[in-house]
């Protein structure tokens, strides 16, 4: 499997007094499609910019294929970051940008680029800064995919696209990834449509790590329980409740944590229905903050209302220091 892996160790990146990445330690497996998830301002773009050597760490290390990317010609030749702006020549024709990228990038495929321009209905003679937002995003995706870099990072690149373009993007990404395996990092806060493309998921918040694990594992970390209120309460006793809805005498709660072996038997006995939680929901729960205006203290994490946690236990979410000493954060068993 080709592709550059990433190791981040105790990474801190500050802009003046502002700490964008605050002691991050994580790995991105070589050759995987990894989802980098985080809310706006969580540090995703700063992390990716550091990996692409657009920024230097304030302290700690960010290694790409085992080496510091800063002024590293070999690593940089195989690393491509497309930010929301497109990272292209704004006042040039699209074709001119492709000429430029073709010269600079060893694995660039002009054939794939031309095919994708067609798919997204982009005119190579148009100038990038005359395009609509969606078309700009699409062109960023074209450049990012056709570059075929060992580490390809697409930062929020599909957010501006309309639905047909997004699906065309997912299909193009998968098809080309299968033929030319490489490490692909897709960052976003909107993951509903794309989460099944991920093999690995990293969630960050306030510049710290909430979790990093195989996507399939993350999916089994949550559970919805629906049924008569008292039965639902009895089923959920002692579990971490992250969401609760009530409709008359019927309740639905969202539980976080690994499933128990006897879940199905207990559900049957109590007459409640168990359902899946989608990754987007889990993400919202994981990064929900106490106040609607956000949390300046930087201790956000999995917050649980006191009434949901009679034991009042405290601890951190993944042992990564994500939750700090916030007493309302419930320990999640692993």
């Amino acid at each position: 499997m080709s592709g550059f892996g990433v190791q981040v160790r105790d990474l801190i990146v500050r802009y003046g007094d502002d700490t964008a990445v605050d002691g991050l330690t994580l790995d991105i497996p070589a050759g995987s499609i990894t989802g980098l998830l985080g809310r706006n301002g969580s540090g995703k773009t700063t992390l990716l910019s550091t990996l692409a050597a657009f920024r230097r760490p304030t302290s700690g290390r960010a290694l790409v294929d085992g080496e510091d990317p800063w002024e590293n010609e070999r690593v940089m030749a195989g690393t491509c970051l497309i930010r929301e702006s497109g990272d292209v020549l704004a006042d040039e024709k699209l074709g001119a940008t492709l000429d430029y990228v073709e010269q600079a990038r060893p694995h660039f495929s002009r054939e794939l680029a031309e095919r994708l321009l067609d798919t997204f209905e982009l005119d190579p003679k148009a100038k990038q800064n005359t395009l609509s937002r969606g078309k700009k995003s699409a062109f960023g995706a074209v450049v990012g995919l056709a570059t075929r870099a060992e580490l390809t990072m697409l930062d929020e690149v599909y957010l501006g696209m309309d639905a047909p373009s997004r699906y065309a993007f997912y299909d193009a990404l998968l098809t080309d990834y299968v033929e030319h395996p490489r490490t692909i990092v897709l960052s976003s806060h909107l993951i509903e449509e794309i989460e099944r493309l991920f093999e690995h998921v990293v969630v960050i918040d306030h510049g710290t790590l909430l979790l990093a694990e195989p996507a399939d594992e993350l999916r089994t970390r949550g559970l919805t329980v629906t049924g008569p209120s008292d039965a639902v309460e009895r089923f959920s006793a002692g579990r971490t409740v992250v969401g609760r809805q009530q409709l008359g005498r019927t309740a639905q709660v969202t539980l976080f944590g690994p499933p128990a072996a006897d879940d199905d038997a207990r559900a049957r006995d109590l007459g409640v229905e168990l359902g899946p939680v989608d990754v987007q929901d889990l993400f919202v729960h994981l990064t929900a903050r106490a106040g609607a205006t956000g949390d300046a203290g930087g201790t956000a994490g999995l917050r649980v209302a006191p009434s949901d946690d009679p034991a009042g236990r405290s601890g951190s979410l993944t042992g990564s220091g994500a939750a700090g000493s916030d007493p309302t954060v419930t320990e999640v068993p692993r």
Partner: protein
Amino acid sequence: MFDGRDPIYLQIADQIRSSILDGTLQEEEQVMSTTQYATTYRINPATAAKAFAELVDEGVLYKRRGVGMFVATGARSTLQADGRERFFAEVVDPLVDQAHVLGIEVADVVKRIEDRATRIGSEAETRGAAQGGAR
């Protein structure tokens, strides 16, 4: 598609098992490649590969080098045997429990099962006759 509670690779494996059990996939028939599976359902190729690997381990699928994945001979009867025990535990036991809660006599349940089985049998016979007794 694949919106159950289990990891997606298990749901893919289950789907292929069901297709073999209901005859959609015949023994010695080629199944989709992991690549086709990934692009058709927009899932990660590694996830699809994991499902196929599990079925190969179980002897349900086997690999012909350079050609692809095929359903193993005997896969259907193996799956039927595995499914038998699970059917009693997951379908029959809860059914008996529920009947008890509702105060339904076991004899009534048995009669209903027999009626239903007779009807399915005669429908299959009619279908078989219509197809000139094929099967």
